[in-house]
C-alpha cells in the first residue's frame, strides 16, 4: 500500500516508432544521492520504453503491468501517452491523471495533440505536464484548470515591448478598447 503522495513514477510520450518526444522519470526532491530513482541510467530508461512500446503499440492493452510497474496508456493519432506507477497504485487515479493531460492539451491546441502539434508547441506541453505532476505528486486533474495555468509565448515583439511597462492595466484597457471598436464596426453603429 502506498501511503505517500508519490503516485506517479513516470510520464512518457513516444512517437509511432517508439522514439522519445517527452520523457520524465520522477523522484522526490531532497533525497540522498542515488536514492529514489526509478532507473539508474538513461540506457535503462530506454530499454524499458522499448519493451513497453512493443507491448502496447497498435494494441488495446491500455492498462497493464509491465516490469513490475503499473502502466496506463492512451494512443492519440501518431503518439502514445503513458503514465507509469507503482504496482499497488489506484488504476483509476493514474488513468484520470493521464486523461487530464491529454484533455488539457486538446483544450489548448483546439485539436488532437499529434506529434507535429506537440513539437511546435513544446513549451506549452512542458507547462501542462508541470502543472499536472510535481515530481511524482498529482497536482491537478481538472483539464480546464490545468489549461488555464498555461501561458503562451508572446507572438510578436510589440506585445513583448508593451509588457516591459509596469502598467499591465494599460494592456487590459487597450484590449478592451479594441474589442469594443470591433464590436461597433460589426454592428455598423459608427
Amino acid at each position: 500500500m502506498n501511503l505517500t503522495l508519490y503516485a506517479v513514477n513516470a510520464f512518457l510520450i513516444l512517437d509511432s516508432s517508439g522514439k522519445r518526444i517527452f520523457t520524465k522519470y520522477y523522484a522526490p526532491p531532497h533525497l540522498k544521492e542515488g536514492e529514489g530513482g526509478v532507473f539508474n541510467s538513461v540506457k535503462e530508461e530506454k530499454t524499458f520504453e522499448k519493451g513497453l512500446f512493443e507491448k502496447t503499440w497498435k494494441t488495446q492493452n491500455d492498462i497493464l503491468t509491465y516490469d513490475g510497474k503499473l502502466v496506463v496508456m492512451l494512443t492519440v493519432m501518431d503518439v502514445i501517452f503513458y503514465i507509469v506507477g507503482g504496482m499497488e497504485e489506484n488504476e483509476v487515479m493514474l488513468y484520470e491523471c493521464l486523461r487530464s493531460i491529454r484533455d488539457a492539451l486538446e483544450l489548448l491546441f483546439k485539436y488532437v495533440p499529434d506529434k507535429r502539434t506537440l513539437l511546435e508547441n513544446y513549451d506549452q506541453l512542458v507547462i501542462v505536464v508541470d502543472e499536472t505532476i510535481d515530481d511524482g505528486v498529482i497536482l491537478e486533474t481538472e483539464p480546464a484548470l490545468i489549461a488555464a495555468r498555461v501561458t503562451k509565448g508572446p507572438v510578436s515583439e510589440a506585445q513583448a515591448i508593451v509588457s516591459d511597462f509596469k502598467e499591465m492595466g494599460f494592456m487590459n484597457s487597450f484590449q478592451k478598447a479594441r474589442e469594443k471598436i470591433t464590436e461597433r464596426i460589426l454592428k455598423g453603429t459608427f
Partner: protein
Amino acid sequence: MSYSKKDDDGDESIFANVNQVTVTQDARAFNSSSISPRKSRRLLSKIAYLIYTGEHFQEKQATELFFGITKLFQHKDPSLRQFVYIIIKELSVVAEDVIMITSSIMKDTATGRETIYRPNAIRSLIRVIDANTVPAIERILTTGIVDPISAVASAALVSAYHLYPVAKDIVSRWNNEVQDAVTSHNVGRKVASSPFFTSTLGYTPNASGISQYHALGLLYRIRRHDSIAMNKLLQLLVSNLGTVSNSHAFVMLIRYISSLMDQNTQFRDQMVPFLHGWLKSKGDMVNLEVARNMVRLKNISDDDLQPVVSVLKIFLSSHRSATRFSAIRTLNELAMTRPHLVHSCNLNIESLITDVNRSIATYAITTLLKTGNDESVDRLMKQIVTFMSDISDNFKIIVVDAIRSLCLKFPRKQDSMLTFLSNILCDEGGYEFKRAAVDAISDMIKYIPESKERALAELCEFIEDCEYPKIAVRILSILGEEGPKASEPTRFIRYIYNRIMLENAIVRSAAVSALTKFGLNAEDKFVQRSVKVILTRCLEDADDEVRDRAAFSVKALEDRDAFLPVVKSDKIPSLPALERSLVIYISERKFGQGFDIKSVPVLSQEEIDAENLRIKKATTEVEFTEVTPAEDQNALASSNIETEFLNALESVSEFNEYGPVLKSSPSPIELTEQETEFVVKVVKHVFKDHLVVQFQLHNTLSEVILENAVVVSTPSTDDLVEECVVPAAIVSGEPVSIFVSFKFNDSVPYPLTTLTNTLQFTTKEIDIHTGEPEEEGYEDEYKIDDLDVSAGDFISPAYESNFDGLFDSLEHEASEVYVLSLLDSFRSTCSRVAELLQMQPLEGTENPTDKPVHVMKLSGKLVNGEKVLALVKMAHSKDGEGITIKVIARGESDSSVELVVGGIA
C-alpha cells in the same frame, strides 16, 4: 535557422539541429541588455526538449545555463517568467550554487500578487534551497498552505511535502495550518481568473478541491508516528463527512484508515460501516480503493467482505478498462485468501477471458484457476480450448503456465489437462510456446506420479515430429530420468532409437545419454543387452560427441557394477551450501589440504524436488502477467535474504564450535511494526545442542545512532539456557545483527519455549551541523514482540513419494485432537497447520474439496535426521465455531511424534 513555414515539412525540423553545444552558445543571448521574451522562450523550449528526451547536462554546463537563465528575471513578461521557473527546477538538480537565486524567487512568492507564476515560484523555491534555509521561507509556505487560491495552496502543500524529509521539525510546526487546509471550506476553493476561461472556455469552472488531497497527505506525514493523534484525526474526518470532498483525498483517507484497522479491533469495527457506505458512492476511484483495502485486511469476516464482492462484480462489466482491470486484479488477490467468496463472480469473470485488453484476460484466467473446483475446471478448460487458436504465442505461454499451476492444484484433473497440453503440442506455435507446454508436462511427470505413464507416451509422440532440437533434447533427458522406472520401459526405447536414426548430432548425443540410463537402471537382462547392442552401433557415428558418449556408455555397461554406485547415488550436495563452502575454501587459501566435500550437507533428490515444488506453488500465487521475471525476482530476493542472514552468522567465531546449522527459519519474523523507529526482524538457527537467535536491527532514524545494542532475551521455561550475546557496536543506516545464543537443557530433546525480548542500547544524537554523534549518550531500552520457539523450528519439509507405505512401517505413533476456533475453512486450516509444523503437504491434500471431512498428509524431517509423517483429519466443529482436527503422527522415535502432535498446541 529560420522558423518560417517552409521548414515545417519534416516533423523533426523544429528541433533537428538542437544539441547541447548549440543551446549553450545561444544561451549567451540571455546576457544581452535587450531581452527578447519570444526568442528566450523558444530557446528555453530547446533546452526543455533536450532535457525531456534524455540529454543530461553536465554540472558545469548546467551551472552556466542556470545562471544565464537567471538574467531573464530582469524581464517581467509572465509567460517567460513561468517557463523560466520550470527550467530552473530541472537544472537545479545538477547545477551548483543554485541557492544564490533564492531572493529573486522569493519576491514572486509574495502574497497579494495574483500572478499566474506565483505557484511556479513556490514550487521552484524549495528546489533551490537546502535544509538550513528552510526557516527563511517558513512564512511563505505557511501563508500559501491556507491560501484560498487552489493552485497556490497546492503548490505550498506539495512543496512542504517534498521538504519534510530534510526539515521534519520545521514542517511539523505547521500542523495547525495543514489541518486547516484539510478541514476548511475556504482553502484552495477559489480559482484564479484567467483569460483562458473567457476566451476559450466561456465560463469559469469550480475548483476541484484537490488541495485537500495534498493537505491530508502532508498531515499524515507529520502525524503518522503518533497513533493516538492519527486515530483522532481519522475519527474527526469520518464523523464530519462533508469535510472530505475531493476523490483523491478520499483515496488517501481510505488508505490511512485501513493501515490502522489491522492493529485496532475496536477501530476496525467502527470503520467497516463507513467503508461499506463508500463502496456505493463517490465514484469508481474511491469504490475500487475501498474494495482493495478491505480485501487486504487480515481480520475481517466473510460477511463484511460480501458487499465488496458485489461491487467488484458490477465493475467487471464496466466500459472503462482501468475499472475492469482494477476489479479483476482485486478479485484475483481475494481468490488467493478466500476463493469461496469469489466463486459467485465466476460467470462474470469468464466473460473477461476474451477481453480486448490482454492483461484483463490473463487475470481472468488466473482468478478462475484459483476459485475453480473440480466441476468448474472442466468448463474452464473447454473455454480455453475454444479461444486458444485466436491468441498470440505470448498469451498462449501465459495460458500454458496457468494450466501448469492448475495441474499442481488439481492432480485429479490430470487427464483432461494432459489431453489439452498434448493437443496444443500438435498445433501451430513457436519455440517458446512449445517449450512451455513441455515444461508443464514435465512438472506433471515429476509431481503427479499417476500421470507419468501417459505423459511420457505423449512426449514420445511429440518428438517423432518435433522441429526444435533443443526441445527434443529436453524430452530425451526426461525419458532418460523417468523411463526406466516406468512399467514397460521398452516402449520408450523404440522412440529413442528412432532419434538416433533420424535426427541431427545434438539430438543423437542426447539420445545416447538417455539410452544409457535405461541400460544402467533397468533390471531386465534383455533390456540391458538390447541397449548395449544399439550403443555399440553408435561407436561408428559420424559425430565426435556421439561417438565419445557411446564409447563411455558401452564401457559403463560392460562394468555395470562399478559404475552403479556413482550414477545411482541419491545424495546430492546442497548447491547453495556447496557454493558457500567453496568460497570460504578459496578465500582462506588453505590449499595445503584438499577440499572436504563430505563436510557439505547433502540432500536427497526427493528433498530437492520438494523444495522446488514448494517454490513453484509459491510462484503460482504471484501475479501472473510476467511469470519469468516474477520467479527470478522471488528466487533472487529469497536467496538474498538467506545469504544476508547466514553471512552475518558465519562472521561470528563464537559459534564455530557448535557444528553445522541444522535448520534456520525459512523467512525472517518481524518483531516490530514496519513503520516504527527501530525495525527488528529475527531468524532462528538450530544447531545440535544450541539455538542461536539472530536479531536484525534497522535504525530508521537519521538523527540518532545506537551503540552497544543488545537484546535481553528471557525464555519462559528452563529448557533453554542463555550462553552469550553478541552485540551490535553501532547501529546507523544499514541493518545490523545482534546474536543471542542458548544451550539446550540436556534433559529435553526439543526445547519449546517463548522468548521475551527487550532491546537495550546507548542513544547518541547526531549534531545537525557537524553530522557527528554527540559525545554523551544515554541508556535506553525498547520492547519488542515475544518470539516462540516451536515444533516447526526443528522440522524441515521433506518430500515423500510413498506416504502410505512409510506411514505403516514407522513404529512410533501419537495422536491428539484439537479445536482450532479461529479458523473457519479447511483451506486455512491446511496452510496454518503445514506452516506451524514446517512439514510438506503431499498428493495435493492441501487443496480441500467440498466434502464435509478432509484429510491432509504431511511429511517432514527432524533436525536429527529422523523421518516423521502426519495425518491431519479435519471437520467443522459441532458447535459451529472453528475446525476440529485430529493429528496422527508416525515417526522413528517417541520424541519425534510427540513433537509433531504437540506442535499444534
